[in-house]
């Protein structure tokens, strides 16, 4: 088994095929989209491939250490950021092919006009623990 992180971006990913902001969809199209996402996660739980999924708020900040005895420096909200993560799902699957297959299904979630969004999702394999058998 191998774990993969599926990343959805608010910005920074290449443009989707059906690239219409959600507030321009009809309420029914939004409902259909939410239903699709819920069904997708529920299905992966049933197949034993779902690990975790969370959504992130679009606002946030950069923070860094600024030296002994000083408060951390903050910068934001993400003024210069090109890349903005909207959320993630972690899956535990048998193969890279399966990870790609599932990401493809997630990207097919319906959007404006009820048509698939074809949004680009970032798929990142986890670095694993060393295996027990090494030769």
């Amino acid at each position, binding site marked *: 088994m191998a774990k993969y992180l599926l990343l959805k971006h608010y910005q920074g990913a290449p443009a989707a095929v059906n690239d219409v902001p959600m*507030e*321009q969809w009809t*309420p029914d199209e*939004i*409902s259909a989209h*939410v239903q699709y996402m819920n069904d997708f996660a529920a299905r992966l739980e049933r197949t034993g491939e779902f690990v975790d999924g969370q959504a992130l*708020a679009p606002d946030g900040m950069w923070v860094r250490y600024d030296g002994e005895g000083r408060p951390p420096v903050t910068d934001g909200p993400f003024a210069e950021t090109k890349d903005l993560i909207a959320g993630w799902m972690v899956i535990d699957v048998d193969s890279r092919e399966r990870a790609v297959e599932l990401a493809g299904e997630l990207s097919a979630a319906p959007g404006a006009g009820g048509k698939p969004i074809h949004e680009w999702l970032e798929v990142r394999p986890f670095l694993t623990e060393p295996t027990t058998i090494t030769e």
Partner: protein
Amino acid sequence: MTSQLDEGLVRSLTPSVLGVLVRRGADFAAAEDAVQDALVEAVRVWPADPPRDPKGWLVTVAWRRFLDATRADAARRQREDVVDEEPAPASGTSVDDTLQLYFLCAHPSLTPSSAVALTLRAVGGLTTRQIARAYLVPEATMAQRISRAKRTVSGVRFDQPGDVATVLRVLYLVFNEGYSGDVDLAAEAIRLTRQLAAAIDHPEVAGLLALMLLHSARRDARTAPDGSLVPLAEQDRGRWDVGAITQGVRILQAALARDELGEFQAQAAIAALHADAPTAEETDWVQIVEWYDELARLTDSPVVRLNRAVAVGEADGPRAGLAALAKVDDTVPRHAAVAAYLHERDGDLATAARLYAEAARQAPDLAERDHLTRQAARLNTRRGRPRTA
């Protein structure tokens, strides 16, 4: 008792059993561990062999566990003077014990998340695993949080009087920020507040209990079958829990009659006015505005002033609501959502749609974000869908 274990009964005995152990001289952290062990044992043994005196049974088993653990501890440290096997004579009542336990678990030296966890475990009798699942954190993390909390309060003397307000804040958090898992935290908060109300006669405890009952009564109607939020005005009022409303109103009226108003009573009064309206149109918004005025005097909270602007918008029209909103700091959460609503009522659909979309971006949870995006979508669709590239 039948073969089916009444978990509610078991857990309702937790605080008084813990109180007995502490009164006999056990330190709080060790006593709490021992009571948890006894509860686990009860779940295992009682279905087949129910005790005649459940509390007595739990005290006996917990005390034995405490002695075993202390002895093991003492042996490890090569000390023998730690524990006196004979229990000290009991003094005080179980009501006092329960009350002291609430104060201890909500002690001001604890952070809110620690106080919540310790209250659910020591007063509520939930297991660490249940609490961890409810708050979506790993069990080991929750175990650490609870054990640190126990260490923090272990030096607090058990007989000091506490501040009811700190307890109420903790119970309010449990009710309002209960997430998920196999435990219904809102129901648990109601149970613990009811138990507190039985131990202390205080109008704000009654006010909080009424507030919880009145909000809980609407809970099923708040969510559509697909999981989306249903706003108050659109809820099917036939799905409201009449029993909970009746009880909440009765408790609130008794509290208000004592003429010691506090913020929970005022919030409950607003909830009661909503519960009292057969339809959204028949809501007594004028009286609701008056209660928000009281609440603003009591708390001076910008969130209260924001909600007041909504009520003013309903009582005196959207323009009056927008005027009230203009005096509220626009960094207050949900400011954009309220502005959007009032602009829509005022007929400015373009501004409303823009503000709903902005509010969706600021929404603190997914259900609310989806709801606000739908509101923007509804207005944009009505205005003719502008197609972007």
